[in-house]
């Protein structure tokens, strides 16, 4: 069985770099990346990742908009989307779940907890 593909979406290169370092050291996942919501939808349709880990506040298309768009496409509607953001308020969390995400995590995230959660979603 091949390694699972995770699409990481964040406009911050630091965030992408940190996640890439964590994943390369502690997992066998294949990490794809996108720089905003629009890019994420395009890549998800093309690559069919097993899971999407996405920031919320991004230019061109926010994570919430991208999540809604992904849930509307037949090919991507079943892919679990985890929103990973600095916005931790109750209202933001509610908005996140309304967009159709499977989980809502706040930054800064604990590496071990994140990987455990991913494993659970990926059925490992």
């Amino acid at each position, binding site marked *: 069985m091949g390694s699972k593909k995770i699409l990481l979406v964040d406009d*911050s*290169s*630091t*965030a992408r*770099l*940190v996640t890439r*370092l*964590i994943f390369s*050291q502690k997992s066998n996942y294949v990490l794809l990346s996108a720089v905003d919501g629009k890019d994420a939808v395009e890549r998800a349709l093309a690559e069919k990742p097993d899971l999407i880990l996405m920031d919320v506040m991004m230019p061109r298309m926010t994570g919430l908009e991208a999540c809604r768009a992904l849930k509307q496409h037949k090919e991507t509607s079943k892919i679990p989307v985890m929103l990973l953001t*600095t916005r*931790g*308020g109750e209202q933001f969390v509610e908005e996140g779940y309304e967009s159709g995400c499977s989980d809502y995590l*706040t*930054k*800064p995230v604990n*590496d*071990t907890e994140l990987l455990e959660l991913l494993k659970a979603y990926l059925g490992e």
Partner: protein
Amino acid sequence: MSATEEKKPQPEAQNREGSAHETRGLTFGALRVRAQQLSLREQLERQHFLLERLNAASARLLQAIELGDVYEAIGEIIGNLLGSEQVAIFRHHTSDQTFSVVWSVGIESETLRQFGMGAGFLGRAAHEGISQFRNRRPDRPVLPHEANLTACIPLKRDREVIGVIVMLRLLPQKNGLEWADFELLKYLETYGAVAAQLQDLRENPVKP
């Protein structure tokens, strides 16, 4: 069976008792060792966690090829690894001993633009060249624009302060700065300054 014989402990019983003592002793000993191992592992996990962050911070600083990108990298490192989205970076102007903002995120532009060396909490931290944390110095008076201050980190090479990182509020989900955060800030204090000063020299070489 004689009384003497009765008092004699039976070899089997003696063995059982001895063995129980030993097992109990071994169990306590093993538990102590296990607790020590767990404690050590916890410490090492924490240090490893910091190492990962320093690694990421270094990689990001090394990627920055322009001065503006160095500032952005510092801001992003604080935003993503520490948990604050109210950050400003100030540059030191040696000519008039003032600091002016060169990069900021989440801060009203009019609120915090400039300060003088020695003035207010920020100015004093810059003057002393030592990182200051508001909750550690509640006695120090603050100016109105410093009200939400969390930390002030001088960017310095040796003793020369070339700028200052100002962190206002932490993210609501962040309960406070932790050991790894202080270490990361210490790293930025020096290596953020190195990256910024080097890019500055590359972009603005000193004319003979």
